[in-house]
């Protein structure tokens, strides 16, 4: 009989995926059971839930109000309101359908990308920087119009490769800690990560107000934080891989309703 030193046993114990087939072990977890899909709201304390529900005290509404102003008037120049009516149901629910395929740009775009496309092509103005106060205010305002409506992205043939890339990113181990998104947000949702509850990682509240940021922020900023947290290389805001992840996450959260501006820790 071959004797195996104790230390090797310990190593094997903590490195299970090295000798199980990584892909097949995750395949059956690919899709969360729709009955079990839970918004990050469900993991909040009662106080934070109350703050999110209070349309005055929720600080995210500061950005929504600013977005309402930006949307309506742009000092005499054409504004968003020149083309879009907030009473139009197709427009007011548009935030539920991003990210989506853009025929004119021949790529996947999210709400931020759509706003900048409008500004450049229709309004002949400079685009807004991602995470700028103006961009966050406008995305918060447009997302807020669709509050309570279910996430509803279209998985067309054009966006399939992006969806696949996003899914691969979600299940790929990366960074110094060698962790995949799925290991926390699929397999350990509801368990504790130090003092914090791990959520299922759904994007239905973005842009949202995070206590840690003391500010509103987009999904891509959150993804950068996640990647930094597992000591992986954060990808640029608005990069193709984050857009792909955004699409995969939106698809994964299908059925959850939009909550922006949400409150999260």
């Amino acid at each position, binding site marked *: 009989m071959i004797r195996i030193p104790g230390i090797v046993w310990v190593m094997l114990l903590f490195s299970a995926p090295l000798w199980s087939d990584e892909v097949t072990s995750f395949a059956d977890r690919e899709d969360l059971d729709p009955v079990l899909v839970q918004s990050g709201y469900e993991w909040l304390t009662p106080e934070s839930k109350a703050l999110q529900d209070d349309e*005055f*005290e929720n*600080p995210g*509404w*500061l*950005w929504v109000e*600013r977005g309402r102003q930006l949307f309506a008037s742009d000092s005499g120049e054409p504004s968003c309101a020149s083309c879009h009516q907030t009473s139009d149901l197709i427009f007011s629910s548009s935030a539920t359908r991003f990210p989506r395929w853009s025929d004119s740009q021949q790529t996947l775009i999210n709400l931020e990308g759509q706003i900048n496309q409008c500004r450049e092509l229709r309004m002949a103005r400079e685009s807004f920087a991602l995470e700028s106060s103006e961009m966050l205010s406008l995305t918060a305002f447009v997302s807020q119009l669709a509050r309570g409506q279910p996430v509803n992205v279209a998985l067309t043939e054009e966006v399939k490769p992006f969806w696949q890339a996003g899914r691969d990113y979600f299940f790929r181990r990366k960074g110094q800690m060698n962790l995949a998104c799925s290991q926390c947000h699929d397999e350990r949702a509801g368990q504790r990560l130090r003092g914090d509850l791990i959520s299922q990682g759904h994007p239905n509240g973005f842009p949202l107000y995070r206590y840690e940021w*003391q*500010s509103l922020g987009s999904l891509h900023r959150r993804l950068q934080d996640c990647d930094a947290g597992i000591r992986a290389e954060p990808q640029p805001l608005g990069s193709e891989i984050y857009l792909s992840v955004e699409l995969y996450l939106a698809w994964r959260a299908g059925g959850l309703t939009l909550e922006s501006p949400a409150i999260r820790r």
Partner: protein
Amino acid sequence: MIRISIPQSADLGEVIEIKAMIQHPMESGYRRDEMGRTIPRDIVAHFSCRFESQVVFKTDWGPGMAANPLLTFFARVNRAGTFYFEWKDLNGKAFKTERAIEINR
């Protein structure tokens, strides 16, 4: 951005609830950026609420306040008039707004 929650009208002598929130980073001056440089302190240090010429509520803040500070306070309304809200930051820059209130007949 400033958000104020106040009733448009009140009964004579009624105590009303006023909420005032201002969008502000409230940078404490203790944090450092990625390069190790101190991020300069930038906080709203003074808030006051006047009813016409009379000060109703006044407070001074330090660097411990969180971003986007929200205040809730109460005032008795004895006549119709205007509430004036003013925030002042450390550089002396003022943020002002006002809300009129009427007496129910």
